[in-house]
């Protein structure tokens, strides 16, 4: 059960992280938010994105031993990037929640 919770959290962290990294790109920011992002907002999105992915890695490492955890994380990155890309294509408004952190 502990593993399930940790891995679910890892997936959520990676998805949020990928989402933030996507929003740091102008073409995706404008899909979700009015107007352009300021330089500070872009920086914040990138930082949050990196943190999200790093948090995902830590959670994976907490769930399994190192060699397996890194593998799970790499695959989670692919899965979460795919989820973000498809969300941006079909339901960009769902990404709005992440922009709240943009400040």
């Amino acid at each position, binding site marked *: 059960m502990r593993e399930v919770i940790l*891995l679910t959290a890892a997936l959520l962290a990676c998805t949020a992280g*990928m989402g933030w990294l*996507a929003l740091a*790109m102008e*073409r*995706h920011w404008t899909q979700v938010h009015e107007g352009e992002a300021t330089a500070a907002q872009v920086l914040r999105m990138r930082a949050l994105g990196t943190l999200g992915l790093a948090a995902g890695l830590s959670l994976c490492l907490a769930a*399994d*031993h190192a*060699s*397996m955890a890194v*593998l*799970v994380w*790499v*695959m*989670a990155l*692919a*899965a979460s*990037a*795919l989820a*973000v*890309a*498809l969300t*941006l*294509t079909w339901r960009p408004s769902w990404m709005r929640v992440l922009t709240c952190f943009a400040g």
Partner: protein
Amino acid sequence: MFQSFRHAATWVHTWFGLVLGFVLVVVFFFGSLSVFDREIDRWAIPESRFEPQPMPSFDKVLRPVFDTMQPMKESVDAMRGKVDGPMPERFDTVRSWSAYTTHRDPVLLLWASYEVPGAQDPHDRVWGNRTIDPRSGKVFPDDQLKIGSQFFYPLHYGLTLEWQDLGAWIVGFAGLVMLVALISGVVMHRKLFREYFTFRPTRNIQRSVLDLHNMTGVLALPFHFFFAFTGLLIFAGHYFPVTHTQLEPLHELHEKIEEQQTGLPQDRAGVPAPLASVDAMVAEARRRWTAKGMAGEVGLVSANHVGDVNGYVSVWRAGTDRIANVSDGIHFKASTGEVLYEEPPLTAVGSVGNFLIGLHLQHFRHWLLRWFYVLGGLMGTVCLATGLIFFVEKRKKQHAKAGGQSRRVVDALAVSTITGMLVATMSILVANRLLPEALPSGWPPRGDMERYVFWGGWALAMIHAFVRSAPVAMDRLNPAWHEQCWAVAIMAVAAMLLNWITTGDHLLRTIGAGYWPVAGVDLSLLVTAGLAVLSARRLGRKALAAMPVPRGGTAHA
């Protein structure tokens, strides 16, 4: 020859991608299915639908079965040309008896190899195998094809084309081209980071297909590279048989030295000796693993040179909890049970090699990672399929005017490879449930019948694709696409219903009982049907709406 590296990369990616793409779609798709090969076996062989079992007692359960085994007819037939003198009726000189199990195996596979008297190559063997219920030792009929592990899986790495290993070589070359295509694809994709999350399905067909191709390729790029690479590494000894040809003398020298160092004899002594209690040896192996802080299950047990004083038994630990396959082998003298040799810790290169191979073969217990592998494999399949489709779409407009028929051929081949492959997959599952348990005598074995239905279904799909391909020459969609999607949807649902009707294991029951192998296959069939219906409807609308499109125009549906 080419104006720049990018041009060269583009040409190679396009043309080698086109030719080998057909093979790679098959390799990736059946590779994805192979992640759950044993679960598909459970669906296909209802008598095996029970919980995974640990390795049973060798002495009480396995030995009696081994004692009655003989090599398979196919194996003996394959040896006929390579023997001086007559082929014996019975084979009693056992080279090895082996049993292998993982945390996903309810039934146990046993196999045996026998020495061949008079063989031109003394290393040649004949092989036999049995599948048993480890709880009772009951032997399963030979006739039942394990559709997952004995069909989809070999299809994945060798196209089941065994003549001169041609299939394995084709897949190997395709694997190399995959690596080349990944590298050249990155070189070609100028906006790799800018378009990382970009998918525009509402733009024209070429743009949306290319977006999907790039997305499924780039987002899972490490996966695609690693799987192609490790797949090739697994068969490296096969593709580069250096140590059995050019360096054979060196290899022999190494084996002699190893024989002395480990005390594990290469050959029989010719002096009979009994086989002591293997259970005691297994218990000792487990004791030693626990003492090293690596308590674990037995993955592989192998008795070599059975009945001879040089016999030895090898016990290997299952790689359930780590990436590496099996490891920590301990070898015992067969006649006495004393420990002859304990495998030392792996060298750095050995560990890396084991890790890379274990990464591909995935015998570890980690359900999320397993499903991630399926996702990666399906993304790869979509990447390859969209590559083929993009090739056709890009050239359709250009050549519709010129009246070329070659685009029709490529499009029909694309339909055959993509939806045709799915039609074949559904066909074998439906046939598995429809064929009677006991076929009338004179008919081929049930497993062979299932295989014929698979290939026959695929052939029919291909014929259908070609027959319906006329619209492609007029820059329209081949109706075979959506027609085959409907066929896939109907057959997927049929397979699921037939499972219910013939075994009583419907979804509510299997989910309720938590028997996920069968529930998983049924659910996957449902999802497949759903996606096939969505695709069929979308493609059907496009085909209907595809009246002459303005040149360079946008999507119609």
